[in-house]
């Protein structure tokens, strides 16, 4: 016998379905870029992704390198393409040809 004071209501959440596009599921391991043993004499690109203030942040990073690790050459760049998309190729090709490492950020 049901309790007349109890109500039965529908679940308002939507049915979730798993995404698959771009998922790394099934990959055994990643071949991460080989690291240099140190940054001495290397060229580091300081890439801001375009969020407000990230350019100023990278300028401060450049000043820090100049003061504390002057042997590191730093180059300021802004990510090309749309801020929220993985659509940059020209800048990454430039860095691959002319640089050794990237510091990338920073949103918020």
């Amino acid at each position, binding site marked *: 016998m049901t*309790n007349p004071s*109890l*109500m*039965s*209501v*529908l*679940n*308002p*959440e*939507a*049915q*979730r*379905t*798993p*995404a698959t596009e*771009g*998922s*790394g*599921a*099934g*990959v055994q*391991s*990643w071949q*991460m*870029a*080989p*690291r*240099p*043993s140190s940054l001495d004499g290397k060229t*580091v690109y300081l890439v801001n992704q*375009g*969020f*407000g*203030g*990230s350019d*100023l*942040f990278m*300028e*401060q990073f450049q*000043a*820090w390198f100049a003061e*504390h690790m002057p042997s590191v050459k730093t180059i300021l760049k*802004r*990510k*090309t*393409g*749309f801020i929220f998309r*993985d659509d940059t*190729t020209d800048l*990454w*090709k430039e860095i*691959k040809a002319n640089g050794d*490492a*990237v*510091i*990338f*950020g*920073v*949103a*918020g």
Partner: protein
Amino acid sequence: MKFGIPTAPLSTIAFQSVVQEDTEYFGVPLRFVYTPHPVVSMRPSVLRGYIEGKDAVTGRPLIEEVLEALTKPYTEDESKNLARVRPIPERPRLLEAGTEEKLLQLFVERGWTDGLPIVLPTEERVAKMLAGTRQPPDKLVGKAFMVDTQENLRITVETVAIAAVMAGARPEHLPVLLAIATTGQPAIQPSTLPFASGLLVNGPIRNEIGMNAGMGALGPYNLANAAIGRTWTLMSIVWGYARRKRTFWTSQGNNFTYNNLCMAENEERSVWEPFHVQKGHKREESVVSLFRGWNLLNSTGAAARRSWGEEVKLQMQALPALYSAATLILDPMLARHLKEYEGFQTPLEVGRWISENVKMTAQQFWTNDIIDMLVAPLAMSGVQPYAGWKQVPAETLIAPYHRPDKINILVVGGETSPLWKISDFDYTTTASIDKWR
């Protein structure tokens, strides 16, 4: 894309959960380093303090973390894929039965409200709501993408009907809500920015369901306007677009998201073609058009001592002019005045006038954060007129509303005053209501 460049990615601590979600989905073992939050608007000395300070997660010196990320070899163990297939939890159609008081409390605890009381979606109430459409309850209406989990949501007719009941809508409102749901556009946009949305209903259904396009159309005086606008918000909240610090980071929020400027166009009193006809629909079609932006300025007077054009120029100079987008909501009395006394035969002619006459300096345009974030990349890649505007001296006057077709003119109001509202809302899409009747 893989380029094989050693990289140290940085994020503020506010987005740690996003990094974790992405890592679980994509699986790439990136060595993220975390600064304090925020970066935007911080003085250079503060930013320098972030760099010389500690990683906001590990507590280690941030600079050490960055240098290590760039120079420490990845071990085999660290290179392991971190992606995991997350099981989709069961979604029972019915919640566990309870008293009305307990169920209402459950909806609050689960975050399934906009803060106001909701109507519990009992089977009986949802069944009555479903009478508002001929479509079967299990018919797929659309999908919605979740930015945190990368999952999709499967939205059915019944899913929408449940939200409609909760918001206090009536069955006759359901086709409008189903049309909105087909777009996949949430009322609440996942962002740190206080986005707002807008919706405009055109066509015969406006009058059939008793929407208010006249006096007080944008105020709390009409059930259809109120309930349709609120349902769109509840769809977003309940379906997952307002999970604090997961999909929702806006510091102050936006009051417009309570109702999303839900309005109908006053087609009967407008001297111009209705908005949906301008967009290629037939007058007898019922459609809903959606908008997205942030700001809405009211005309504070009737431009008695300053012309309408001068007043509009002042107001529109205060908005970012993102992608040339603007939406003006004019009282029918003002639309008639503009046509009869100022010669604007169509809304597009109003848009052309604005496009040619509203100007700001290049410096003002480019120093807006939104413009810098979203438009500067277009300038960098040579897209005109933005690339040209980057080259001119800072004090050069530019016409930022360069596309008259992006300036939307809506006619709404009750003709008690020739007033208007101006917003930076961009038109996003129009969806058919008739196919959901």
